[in-house]
């Protein structure tokens, strides 16, 4: 008699596979217990939907192809309120369309995961090539004050692992979580090892236990309210309007709005130690640091390792959690190094919060590259050398 | 004989009931409710045939038509 977890593994296939980053995101979702996917085809994210469409009926989940990304985002939020784990996947143009209901998910504290396999814009841009042009849209794209959680994997294996983490964070903090990769990583094939269940942790949303006196939007542990799924008799009213702890609209009340929106921000800001992930290479005796994220960080890692072998005092801070921004980590590096290089596959987005965190302690140089090609190790070495000449 | 029970907190005095009453038994009262509106009142209780149209058409669930019960039966 096979268990449900056995069926998941059977549906995904071999334990070791040679697959794309998009596939890895789908596998991560399945391992995390996602049983509902709504999406709309878009290059270079379509393969996430294709994998989900193939796997979900096999495990008695539900795949639904919506009419657009607005509807996809709406459907995963609606489905999440029945108590299931939900995901959608898209690329820049689709992510633009999702902003409206992403804000709704934040306001209504709905756990869900959105994968964005980024391509360059503006507009239709370069559909088949990678870019990191949506980093700021992720932070500020939907209107109003809010915090968001975003993770940036650098490999196919990590795309799967961080998708699991994204579900855990979404469940823990009852908020949408973004997994941001790019067209290169999404379409690149690498070795993927599907982990055993005891090799990773799974988090489930805290559910309300008693209908007596239940207030659906009253802060619970970690400022997160206890969840009551639709159909369980709690009779919850969910609205995107400013609402009180009972969930009822109070859109003209300044104190209720203030209290609600600050709590939504604080439940993320007060738990940054649980949310922020990063990797450090050559942090000790480092004069010039690279701060990078996503696929760009891979070439940086090579350059730093090769540089240190040659005796150069270079290091790499790889940001995994981009939002909430790890400003304390960046500030700590800024206090120790002479200069910071920030390579980005855009015209400069994450360099801004980096500069804010560095606060003038050392020069910060942006190495911007757009057009769909990755930073080469040679380009990065040259930029490091140039920076070294300037400051050392 | 019928009486109407009115929820004065919910009635907004819109007159839908008065306008639709097929026996013309309702009218708008001259008194005010706590909401500052003139509520409907049943003035021709004997003419009211208990059809409940006012109750069914009230957009605010404010009217209930009931059969009057005699206390000295």
């Amino acid at each position: 008699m096979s268990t449900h977890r056995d069926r998941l593994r059977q549906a995904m296939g071999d334990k070791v596979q040679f697959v794309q980053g998009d596939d890895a995101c789908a596998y991560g979702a399945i391992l995390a217990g996602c049983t509902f996917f709504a999406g709309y085809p878009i290059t270079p994210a379509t393969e996430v939907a294709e994998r989900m469409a193939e796997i979900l009926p096999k495990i008695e989940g539900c795949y639904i192809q919506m009419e657009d990304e607005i509807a996809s985002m709406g459907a995963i939020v609606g489905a999440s309120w029945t108590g299931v784990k939900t995901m959608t996947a898209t690329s820049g143009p689709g992510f633009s369309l999702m902003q409206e209901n992403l804000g709704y998910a934040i306001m209504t504290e709905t756990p869900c995961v959105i994968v964005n396999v980024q391509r360059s814009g503006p507009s239709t841009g370069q559909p088949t090539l990678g870019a990191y042009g949506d980093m700021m849209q992720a932070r500020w794209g939907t209107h109003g004050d809010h915090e968001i959680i975003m993770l940036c994997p650098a490999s196919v294996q990590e795309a799967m692992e961080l998708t699991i983490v994204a579900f855990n964070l979404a469940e823990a903090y009852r908020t949408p979580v973004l997994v941001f990769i790019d067209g290169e990583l999404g379409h690149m094939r690498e070795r993927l090892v599907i982990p055993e269940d005891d090799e990773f942790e799974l988090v489930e949303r805290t559910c309300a236990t008693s209908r007596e006196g239940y207030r659906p939007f009253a802060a619970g542990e970690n400022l997160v309210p206890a969840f009551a799924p639709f159909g369980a008799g709690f009779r919850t009213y969910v609205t995107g309007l400013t609402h009180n702890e009972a969930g009822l609209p109070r859109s003209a009340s300044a104190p209720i709005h203030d209290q609600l929106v600050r709590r939504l921000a604080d439940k993320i800001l007060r738990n940054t130690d649980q949310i922020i992930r990063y990797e450090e290479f050559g942090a000790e005796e480092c004069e010039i640091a690279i701060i990078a994220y996503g696929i760009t960080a891979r070439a940086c890692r090579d350059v730093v390792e090769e540089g240190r072998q040659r005796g150069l005092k270079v290091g790499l801070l790889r940001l995994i959690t981009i939002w909430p921004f790890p400003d304390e980590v960046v500030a700590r590096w800024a206090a120790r190094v002479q200069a910071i290089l920030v390579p980005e596959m855009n015209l400069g987005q994450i360099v801004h919060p980096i500069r804010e965190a560095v606060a003038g302690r050392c020069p910060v140089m942006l190495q911007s590259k757009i057009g769909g090609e990755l930073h080469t190790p040679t380009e990065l070495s040259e930029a490091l050398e140039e920076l070294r000449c300037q400051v050392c | 004989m019928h009486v109407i029970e009115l929820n004065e907190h919910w009635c907004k005095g819109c007159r839908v009931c008065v306008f639709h009453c097929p026996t013309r038994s309702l009218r708008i009262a001259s008194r005010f409710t706590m909401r500052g509106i003139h509520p409907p009142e049943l003035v021709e209780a004997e003419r009211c045939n208990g059809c409940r149209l006012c109750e069914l058409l009230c957009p605010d669930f404010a009217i209930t038509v009931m059969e009057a019960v005699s206390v000295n039966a």
Partner: protein
Amino acid sequence: MSGLLKLKTAAELRQTYLRHEMFPTIFCDGCGLGNVLNYTLWALDELQLDLDRTVFVSGIGCSSRLSGYVNADGMHTTHGRALAFASGIKAAQPDLNVIVFTGDGDGSGIGGNHLLHTIRRNMDLTVILVNNFTYGMTGGQAAPTTPIDSFSTTTPYGNIEYPLDICALAQTLGAPYVARWMINQPYPPIKSIAQGIQKRGFALIEMLVPCPTAYGRRNGLKQLETIWQWYREHTILIDDYEHIMHFGSPEERAALHDTIKIGVFQDCERESFEARWATLVEQVKL
């Protein structure tokens, strides 16, 4: 369902179905949205639907406030997107009854594409679309349903655009249940909403609702009596309409030019998305 409805009293309805903290309603004098709510509740009561297993979903606008008045799980979503959220709920949990309140602007304007595809997919939803010819909550702008030559704040010289016949669209798309009613008569819409809820598949009930404040005021229909009477005079039962069109004189037929047909336009069977998905899962599940 019995032919003769035995309805609970309004007082009993209040007690059983309403979220008292939300009352009184926000609706204006002469607005018919409250009627749509009580007809829906009478229909629920007729069917003895379990409120614990029923979710009310709505978008944005006056009509979309209706979901909040019912003491059940409710989702007041974003403008035009109610059907997308409702589809997610229903697809993930097909055992739930999902009832959508939407408006003409919400459901057929900004949400028009969702309407089209939710019908095409045949999601098992009951959609009560309230048509008041205008965007009421924003103060009376032209909607996709605003009659030609009507005045609104954004058509100050008269509306030049052709209005959308939402029921005709739904019929064409193959919705298994399509009906339109005015609110002046309670029993037909109550019965129709109950039929819609029982229908396995997409059910659309369009309710013509007077809006004296935002629409009527600019179109000579400011008084409650006038605007409610207008609906009596400008609607005709589909059977009567067809009868006159078939047997009537040219003058009698021409007189129907400005009338709006009401009644049940479509009532057929078509397997729903949920049923088809369940069949597929049975075939491929491990």
